[in-house]
């Protein structure tokens, strides 16, 4: 897909990371990804500035900026704010027009999103307010095993067994994990069980919205190969391989929407 015009940016401030994407002539021109701090305005600006620096641009060069993520409510640098649900839908559709179902797993929530051929949201469901099935949950588990977050998936995939995990509450799961370690279970088998328990919980979300092929996995957790495999097994689907870092999809969608708003408001033809 190719769109012409000026520079449009999307900034997605999540609970663990802030991301930005700059579009030029319908192509991804630059991206930025930084850890989120306590100040969401600053986090968003850091991500945006990183992309601007990579692109060799100034903020003034941008025709339109859309903010998204939980930090969208405090994004004075943005022309408009749009929810991450709408942005993930648009971003996914931009890269993979055949996708109709999205699993978005971020730092503090998880979403099941159904979209149409134009990338418009048809239905969606989000996890309850607890951290089960989120990046934060996996972060806690990585802490328990003293391994890097990015290594969790590969470790889970090396398992020879799946140790069932009965709790998805972060606090209870942590103590259950410690008990399982004390019982002599292998870490990789426990981690495999953790990934599968999250995947089963996600399957519950999809019972509310349904699944239609193709299926895409976005958000920071989508980089976890063990989670991808567990979800494919739980949902009985094959997940489309992402063309870019799946953590950037929300920001990409925001940039696409920025371009649409800009056109609608007559800022470019």
């Amino acid at each position, binding site marked *: 897909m190719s769109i012409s015009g000026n520079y449009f940016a999307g900034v997605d401030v999540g609970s663990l990371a802030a991301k930005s994407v700059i579009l030029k002539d319908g192509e991804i021109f630059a991206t930025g990804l930084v850890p989120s701090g306590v100040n969401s305005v600053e986090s968003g600006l850091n991500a945006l500035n990183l992309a601007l620096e990579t692109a060799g641009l100034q903020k003034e060069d941008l025709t339109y900026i859309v903010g998204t993520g939980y930090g969208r409510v405090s994004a004075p640098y943005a022309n408009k704010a749009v929810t991450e649900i709408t942005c993930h839908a648009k971003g996914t559709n931009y890269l993979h027009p055949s996708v109709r179902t999205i699993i978005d797993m971020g730092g503090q929530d998880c979403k099941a999103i159904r979209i149409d051929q134009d990338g418009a949201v048809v239905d969606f469901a989000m996890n309850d307010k607890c951290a089960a099935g989120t990046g934060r949950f996996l972060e806690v588990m990585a802490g328990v095993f003293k391994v890097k977050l990015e290594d969790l998936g590969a470790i889970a995939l090396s398992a020879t067994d799946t140790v069932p995990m009965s709790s998805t509450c972060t606090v209870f799961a942590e103590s259950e994990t410690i008990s399982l370690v004390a019982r002599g279970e292998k870490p990789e088998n426990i981690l495999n069980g953790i990934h599968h328990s999250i995947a089963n919980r996600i399957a519950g979300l999809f019972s*509310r919205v349904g699944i239609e092929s193709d299926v895409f996995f976005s958000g920071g957790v989508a980089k976890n190969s063990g989670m991808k495999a567990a979800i494919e097994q739980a949902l009985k689907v094959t997940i489309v391989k992402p063309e870019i870092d799946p953590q950037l999809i929300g920001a990409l969608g925001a940039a696409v929407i920025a371009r649409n708003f800009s056109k609608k408001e007559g800022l470019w033809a």
Partner: protein
Amino acid sequence: MSIKTLEIVRKRLEERPEELREARKKGQKVVGWTGYNVPEEIIHALGFIPVRIAVGGDDRLVEVGARYASSKTCVFIREIVGAFAENEDPYIQQTDFLAFDATCLQNYRAAEVIEYFFKKDVVVLAVPRNFAEDDAKTYFVHEANEFTRLLEERAGIALDPARLAESVALYNDIRKTLKSIYTFQAAKDNVISWEEVYDLIQAGELLDKHEYLSLLHQTLAELKERHHNPVIESDDGDSRIFISGSLIPRGDRKLISIINSVGGRIVGDDLWSGILPHLDLDIKEISPAGVALGYLNRTPHAALPYLNLESDRRLKKLHELLSQSKAQGVIYHTLRYCDPFTFKAKETKNVLAKSGIPLLEIHTEYAGSDYEAMKTRVEAFVEMIRIKSESVQEEAA
């Protein structure tokens, strides 16, 4: 420009607790009632002052209530129990006795807990589960007669049919006027908002009924003066939202304020704390039995089981109200542990999907911790409706 009568209503509500105190000094009794099938006309006709016990939105009171009821009880009921435990609510303080019904069994349990722990006199009206059957009607008539007898005992007088006829006429007039006012909130020029009408409906749970009717007539006159013929249709850019599900009592405005904050426009509801109890109440005979049957024949409460979706009057009513209000989507509000509505969420979503109406379930409680997560869901739902609506308009153009 706001409706002037609504300001009077707000002022009268502020003065109402003191009025009740004065009335009780003069020997009148205040009955605190709650439940979908409590026949308020009978309470009124016996000379009692009815006030509805419906408080919400205070998580602290929910925690207090959990000391007496199970923490797995719905948050609304737990808050009511908590409010009785603290006894700081100005209306609860003024109640001489209570009238609860067993439409929702948690309501019935609340009556037990309140009677046991706080020594309140509670009259309970039993309600049949299988409401659609003839035997159930016979049973309910019997229970309504018994309910009336218990009220008569407390009133020290027998129910006078002439007084009952007056009360029924008064309440019928209130319902009719409310329905007329309700039409304006969904209309194009938005001369009165759904939120204002909702507050007005709930004011009627507390104010003197004669005065309330007069205020409703005054409100309607003001509306007609500004807008002779309300036409229900979409304004450009509207995201017309219908609210369904668990009740939203006084004090709980979290979801409503979120919908407003993200640009959604509420144009209708079928909440039992809203317009629903005022619809389709046809009292054919002036007697406790006649009033009771009128109540039972309305759109049934979700707590009463009915498994045939094809003939379920609740779904039929929901479709009818959605069509009248020209709503584009339903936000289905479920309170934590409010089983009747929570269990029906998926079913209702599937049924509405066949008519092309999207439904978003918002499952919540009175704590503020889920505010942002709720806001994201509601905002995305409003965006979804808006995008769909714009795409339909573009196609039409």
